[in-house]
């Protein structure tokens, strides 16, 4: 039939075409290329790398290769995954030593040219469960310790907020909790400061709450003490590995550090505090930033 915009009269029913087959025959993208997946296998007791020769399909990602290995070579190879579209943050691991989502890393982009090897290992900052799977439960415990969104008493949705008000929060809320930033952060990875430092993911979380136009809770005391904001020395590795391209250091950690510095070290505010010495809540935590000080607690 002739096809062209406007060729058919507006009310004409679709041409009664009987499909030849009930399914679309897709190009499977088969190639004659092969890569060697060097996959770490083991558990908390130890392990080693195993090599698997994997036939390459066009555009194949490392997670596809892992699935091929499971279906054809090692049925019990453990790997966490869900959406396979870079939206859930489950398939975090390290590819050639670099933290990455397996579902977004194309095999051909990471195959070493000299030996066609791709090294896949679990995240190093977390305890091993099995093969590529690590125990990330600590992150969920940290999240419980952060005070949730808290609007002012009596402030009820629907709220009036403009796009300009939420631009930064929007960026921070893109986080898919893949924990690659936690994995790469040297404070957690090398210095094992986990209990004293919440890590980049939760600096982003804290920032998203602190910068929410309708949130009134004060999380700066927690940032200063328990969350260990001062331990971050802004090497920006977290920003580099973030699959959502959140500018973790620039748009979350540094603004938080500024807020804290502003409160603690602003000379005018220090003078004000000296002139009006007040007992401080929580053993020395200073008062809220720009707000007028209320009656002293207790």
């Amino acid at each position, binding site marked *: *039939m002739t*096809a*062209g*915009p*406007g*060729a*058919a009269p*507006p009310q004409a029913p*679709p*041409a*009664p*075409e*009987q*499909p030849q087959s*009930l*399914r*679309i025959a*897709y*190009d*499977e993208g088969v190639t004659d290329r092969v890569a060697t997946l060097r996959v770490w296998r083991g558990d908390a007791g130890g392990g080693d790398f195993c090599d698997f020769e994997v036939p390459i*399909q*066009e*555009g*194949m*990602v490392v997670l*596809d290769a892992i699935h091929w290995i*499971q*279906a054809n070579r090692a*049925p*019990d*190879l*453990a*790997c*966490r*995954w*869900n*959406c*396979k*579209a*870079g*939206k*859930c943050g*489950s398939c975090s691991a390290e590819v050639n030593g670099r933290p990455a989502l397996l579902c977004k890393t194309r095999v051909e982009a990471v195959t070493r040219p000299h030996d066609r090897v791709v090294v896949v290992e679990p995240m190093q900052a977390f305890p091993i469960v*099995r*093969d590529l*799977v690590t125990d990330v439960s600590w992150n*969920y415990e940290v*999240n*419980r310790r952060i005070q*949730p*969104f808290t*609007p002012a008493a009596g402030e009820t*949705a629907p709220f*009036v*907020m403009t796009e300009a008000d939420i631009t930064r929060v929007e960026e921070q*809320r*893109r986080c*898919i909790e893949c924990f690659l930033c936690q994995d790469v952060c040297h404070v957690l990875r090398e210095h094992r400061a986990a209990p004293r430092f919440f890590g980049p993911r939760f600096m982003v979380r804290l920032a998203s709450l602190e910068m*929410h136009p309708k*949130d009134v809770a004060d999380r700066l005391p927690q940032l200063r003490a328990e969350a260990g904001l001062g331990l971050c020395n802004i090497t920006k590795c977290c920003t580099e590995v973030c699959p959502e391209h959140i500018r973790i250091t620039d748009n979350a950690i540094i603004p938080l550090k500024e807020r804290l510095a502003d409160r603690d070290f602003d000379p005018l505010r220090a003078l004000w505090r000296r002139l009006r010495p007040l007992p401080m809540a929580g053993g020395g935590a200073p008062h809220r930033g720009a707000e007028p000080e209320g009656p002293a607690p207790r």
Partner: protein
Amino acid sequence: MSLELDTDVLVIGAGGAGMRAAIAAAEAGCRVVVACKSLLGKAHTVMAEGGIAAALGNVDVEDSWQTHFGDTMRGGGMLNNWRMVELFCREVIDRVIELEQWGAVFSRTARGSISQRAFGAHSWRRLAHIGDRTGLELIRTCQDKLVHTQGITLLMETTLTRLLRDRDRVAGACGYQRDTGTLVLVRARSVVMATGGWGRMYRITSNSWEGTGDGAAMAYQAGAELKDMEFVQFHPTGMIWPPGARGLLVTEAVRGEGGLLRNREGERFMVRYDPIKRELSSRDVVARSIFKEVQAGRGSPHGGVFLDITHRGAQAIRRALPSMVEQFESLAGVDITKEAMEVAPTIHYTMGGINVEAETAATTVPGLFAAGEAAAGLHGANRLGGNSLGDILVFGKRAGEAAAADARELARVPAPSRRQAEAEWRLLREPLERADGESPYGLHRELQEAMQSGAAIARTETSLRETLATILQLQERAARMAVAGGPAYNPAFSTARDVRFMLTVSEAIVRAGVERRESRGSQWRLDHPDRDPELGTVNLVARCGAGEMAVQPVPLPPLPAALRRLTEGETRVAGTALADAADAQARGRPRSPSGGVPS
């Protein structure tokens, strides 16, 4: 060794529906256990992109729950449970505002209220959204609410595989923990099934490994009814190239934002199939139209059609569709601000599921409730885009409240016999003890091929019967599966159980597909291309009895006259203006012969 827990309400699944149910039950004063197969916050809800449909009237003030009602009923081929649709359209408005109260951040209008976008077969701009990651916002908001609600115990990476009964009542469930293989037994006064849908039995799917129909199969085995199982939604636009990305969702928001569908010849073919709603026709219509274009030889190089949004300009595209930009960039090497996308239908959603009562989400089995994609009724024969995120909130809350009330009213603490759990654990571990046998991956692959060939977008009596024969054979072979290694984080071990669930659910899909000898909603029968008015008055319901699965017609409850009036007339067009303008402009210029993308 096993982990044993006692609770008031057990919620199986922690997507939006499960979390909302758990929050509601805990707020009603119950102890709640939530078990989910993955980590918290990774459920399918996270993949919902376009938005949540609610007649807030922020952008189009003319919108109302009544119009939403009419759109949803017409979109569902009038097979929807009208009372569910009514409750949904009224209450979803409050559920959206509640999310904002809990800290969700939606895109805004110029006046500072929640912005709403156009979507397929919605009469007005109705979808509250945040760019194209609305599901992530919803799941994160519910997740934060959940972990800060008292009385909830969370079991992550815990797969429950059988409902336990105490006489006629559901009284808990059992299964295993994924990381260790530890067996789990949860005794509960009531159970909410919020396990989502099933798409993993198809080759081309946007579903993760979790979408295996556990909840529907478990409920069916416990005596609940499965309704409308023939209706499986093909999202019109899934990625098709490269093969690894095949099936991944391309959000309907691309069309809502003005995206044009074109065939190889550059023709805007939707004008031919639905001259009024065009690209924003309902999903069943757009999916079929794309399929027909491809089968008629007018497809794109890799077997789909072109979806073009370039006319909106890079800045607007990056703002409205950031995750689509990222997805195509990283997986296909395509810059969607400059090039058209190649798309084709992908299995996306299941309208059918566990038959529930509208007000309480109660199933036909005492003590068992179901909400979200696992339940049937709201969407009828075809779901409108944007109606699933509202579904999980409205009916998740209702299910949680009803399960809590039911648990409190129960005089006797249910005591399911341990024997039931032990029988299930034997079934789970059996493949580990077999040295040689069928591969669970192999059986899964064969099932996918059979379902894709015979029970997918286009169906015939012959294709369905052939698929059924294959399923019955696979069910026999599934008794001989063998798995190497132990139960601790062993994907073959979990696949072995998943295959059994998928075989049960696939059988229901195919048997219902055979019985519905008409084309309606997502069910497209080439041998019965038209609607049959008789079949328009019944739902098909599958029940587990002695012998084989029985599928029977059950009359629809009568639709009150006042509500019927809301379904009359046509769905109006919301927001094709951008696409129309781009198309008109393009017509004045020559087309490129292959791409259909005017440069």
